[in-house]
C-alpha cells in the first residue's frame, strides 16, 4: 500500500472511535429532547455494526465499477446487470446439477467469455471515442444483459443457497444486557469483501497486468505507444469486473434471492463511489462502510423525525456533503488540468 493511501487510512482508523463516540452522544442528546427517538448504547452499537456490515455488501458492488473506471475511465452503467447475469447464470448451472463450487468456476468462465465479447463487439469499435460514448455503450450493455439473462434463465425468483450460515448471533453478552445482535451471514460477507479487496489490491500493485492496467487508466495513447495491448487489457479488466460481479451476485443473491431487482443494487453503489472515489479500491470499501453505517444509523435514530424511509436519500446526501469538500472522493485521485 502506498504512502499516500496509508496516511489517510491511519487517520481514519484513529478518528473512528472518536467519531462513533461523538455520534452516539449526539443521538443520546437527541433522544433526551425528543421522545420519538429511542437510544441505548448497546442498541446504537448494534445498528452501527449492522450498518458497517451492510456497507461491505454495497462495497462488493462498488468494486466492479471502480475496476472498470480505473482501467478505462468509463463509468460502467452495466455493472448492476453484470451482477444479475452472473448470479442467474450460476443458479442456472446449480439447477443443472453442478456443485456450487463447480458452478462458480463455470460461471467465472462465462463472465470471461462475456468480457471478451463486450471488448470485441462494443469497446473495440469505440477506441479513442469520448468517454460519454463509451458510457452510452454500457447503457446498451445493461439493457441487453438484462433481457438476455431473463431470456436465457427465465424471470422466476431463484434461490441461491451455498450454505452460508444465516442465524442471528449475540455477542458481548457480558458487557451489554442481552448482547449485541450480529448476523452470521453479514460476517461472512465482510470476510469475503476483505479477501476480495486484498486480492485486487495485490493484483493491481504487484503484477505486470495490474501495472499495465494502471498505465492504460492514466493514458490510453501513451500506454499503446509503449506496447501495452489495450484490447487485451480491456478484456482482462472486464473479466475481473465480471468475476467481482459474480461474487457480489452470490452474496446479494443468497441474501435476497436471485431476481431482477438485483440489478437495482447498482444504485446503492453510486453514493459509495462518490464518497470513496471512482479510482480507489480501498476507497470503495471505506466508502461502503461509511454509507452503510451512516444510512442505518440515520434511518433508526433520525428517520422517526422524518416519517422513516430516509436511508436511500440520506446515503446520497451524505455523499454530496463529502463531494463539497473532496470532489474526487475520499481516496480518489486529484485531477489537475492545465489550461
Amino acid at each position, binding site marked *: 500500500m502506498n504512502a499516500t493511501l496509508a496516511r489517510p487510512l491511519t487517520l481514519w482508523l484513529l478518528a473512528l472511535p472518536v467519531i462513533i463516540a461523538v455520534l452516539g452522544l449526539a443521538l443520546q442528546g437527541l433522544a433526551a429532547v425528543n421522545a420519538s427517538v429511542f437510544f441505548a448504547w448497546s442498541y446504537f452499537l448494534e445498528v452501527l455494526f449492522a450498518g458497517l456490515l451492510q456497507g461491505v455488501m454495497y462495497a462488493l458492488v462498488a468494486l466492479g465499477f471502480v475496476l472498470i473506471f480505473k482501467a478505462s475511465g468509463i463509468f460502467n452503467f452495466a455493472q448492476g446487470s453484470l451482477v444479475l447475469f452472473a448470479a442467474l447464470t450460476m443458479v442456472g448451472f446449480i439447477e443443472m446439477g453442478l456443485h456450487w463450487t463447480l458452478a462458480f468456476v463455470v460461471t467465472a468462465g462465462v463472465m470471461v467469455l462475456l468480457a471478451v465479447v463486450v471488448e470485441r463487439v462494443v469497446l473495440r469499435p469505440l477506441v479513442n471515442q469520448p468517454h460519454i460514448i463509451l458510457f452510452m455503450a454500457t447503457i446498451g450493455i445493461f439493457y441487453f444483459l438484462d433481457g438476455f439473462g*431473463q431470456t436465457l434463465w427465465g*424471470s422466476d*425468483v431463484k434461490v441461491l443457497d451455498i450454505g452460508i450460515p444465516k442465524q442471528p448471533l449475540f455477542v458481548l453478552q457480558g458487557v451489554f444486557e442481552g448482547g449485541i445482535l450480529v448476523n452470521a451471514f453479514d460476517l461472512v460477507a465482510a470476510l469475503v469483501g476483505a479477501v476480495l479487496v486484498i486480492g485486487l489490491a495485490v493484483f493491481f500493485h504487484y503484477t505486470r497486468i495490474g501495472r499495465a492496467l494502471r498505465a492504460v487508466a492514466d493514458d490510453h495513447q501513451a500506454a499503446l505507444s509503449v506496447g501495452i495491448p489495450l484490447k487485451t487489457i480491456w478484456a482482462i479488466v472486464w473479466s475481473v469486473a465480471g468475476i467481482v460481479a459474480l461474487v457480489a451476485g452470490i452474496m446479494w443473491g443468497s441474501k435476497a434471492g436471485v431476481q*431482477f431487482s438485483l440489478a437495482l443494487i447498482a444504485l446503492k453503489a453510486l453514493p459509495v463511489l462518490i464518497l470513496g472515489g471512482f479510482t480507489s479500491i480501498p476507497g470503495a470499501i471505506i466508502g461502503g462502510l461509511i454509507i452503510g453505517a451512516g444510512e442505518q444509523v440515520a434511518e433508526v435514530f433520525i428517520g422517526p423525525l422524518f416519517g422513516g*424511509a430516509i436511508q436511500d436519500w440520506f446515503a446520497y446526501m451524505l455523499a454530496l456533503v463529502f463531494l463539497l469538500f473532496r470532489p474526487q472522493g475520499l481516496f480518489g485521485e486529484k485531477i489537475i488540468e492545465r489550461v
Partner: protein
Amino acid sequence: MQLRKLAFAAVGALVIGGTAATPPASAAEQFVPLLVYRTGPYAPNGIPLADGFNDFMQLVNERDGGVNGVKLAWEECETQYNNDRGVECYERLKAQGATGSSVVNPYSTGITYALIERATADKVPVLSMGYGRADASDGRVFPYVFTLPITYWAGADVMVQYANEKEGGSLKGKKIALVYHDSAYGKEPIATLERLAEEEGFQFQAFPVAHPGLEQKATWLQIGRQLRPDWVFMWGWGVMNSTAIKEAAAVGYPMDRFVGIWWSGAEADVVPAGDAAKGYKSLNITGVGTNAPIFEDIKKLHADGKGLADPKNIGTVLYNRALVNSFYFTEALRTAQGKFGEKPMSGEQIQWGFENLDITQDKIDSAGMTGLLSPVKLSCADHEGGGSAVVQQWDGAKWAAITDFISPRRAALRPAYEASAAQYAKEKGITPRDCS
C-alpha cells in the same frame, strides 16, 4: 453492405408482418385486453397472473364454446409494471374488437390510479380486484371502477380481527407494527389501522420501506430489537416481501406473528426466503391449491395440448387469483347478456353487468370453483360486493388456508369509503350519481 441492409429489412418486415398477422378479434367475439408484466422486476408475480387469465379464457372457449356462444378474444400488452406503459397499453388496445375493450385489469395500483379518469371517460370498467383505491368501492362517485371482492382497508380490518382472535379476544395493550412499501399502495391501510388502534386499544407503529425494498436491516432492527411488537403486518410487493421475511428471521421475529397482505403472500414471496419463511402468514382473497373441480378441466385442457400456462404455475396463489378475476368478468358479461342479448357487449353494458353481479355459492359450485372464492353481490352504490379473505400459512413447501373466509366489518368501513370518495368528488368536480 447491400446484403446486410437486405437482411435488416427482411428481419424488420418479419417483425412488423408478425405483429400485423395477429388475427383481430372478430365481430362475434368479446375482446379482453390483458395488461401483463412477464418481464421486469415484478415478472415473478406477473407471469402466473398472466398464465391464469390465458388458461381461464381458453378454457371458457374450448369447454363452453365461449360465454353464451360468444367466444373470448384477448391480446397481451407488456407493461413491466410501469404506469406510463400501462396507459400506453390501455390506449393501444381500447379500440380492439367489435365493441372495444370490455374491461381492464391493470394489476397495479399505480396504473389503476392513472386509468380511473380515462377509463371512466371511455366507459370501460376497471376491475381492480384487491388493489387500487379503496374508496372506489363507492359506485356513486366511481361508476366504472370495481374493487370486488375486498379492499386494502377491509384487508387491514381482517388482519386485526385475526390478531384479536389469536390474542383471546382483546388487543388492549398489545403492539402492532406495519411494514409498508413507501408508496400510495403501502399507505392505504394506515388510516384504518390507526382508527382500529384507537377503538381496540392497541399501540400501532408504521415503518416505511423505500422501493424496491432490498434494504430493511434498519427497519427490522427497530422492530425486532426495540419495539418488539406482538404482531407485524406487511403491505409489501416484489422483492420487498422476501427481504422482509429474511430480515425478520435475522432478528429472530416469530414468523407465525407476521402477517402479510394478499400481495405479500405468493410463492415468489416466500420461496427466496427459504426455511426462514416457514410459518409466515398472509391474507388471500382466493382459495389455494388445486382441489377445486375446475382444475380437472384445466388439466384436461393441458392434456389436449390447448393449455396456455406454464404447467408449474397451475394452482399457485396468483394463478388462482387470475382464474377468479376472469370468472368475475365472465359472470359480469353473462349478466349483461341477460339484459342486452347474447352478443359481444360494450364497456358500458358490462359496467351494468358488474353492478348487477350476484355470484352466489350455487354459481361458484356449478362453475367448479368451490373454495376458490366467496360469494359477492354488487350494486350501483356498492362496487366491493361484500367479499372476504382467508388467512393462509406457508409450511415450507406450500400455502395452506388456516381460517375460513373472514368478512371485514363493513359497517365501519363503508362510511370511510363514502367520506373519502366524497372528498375525491369535490376535488374533481364530480356530481355523485343517484343510486337510490
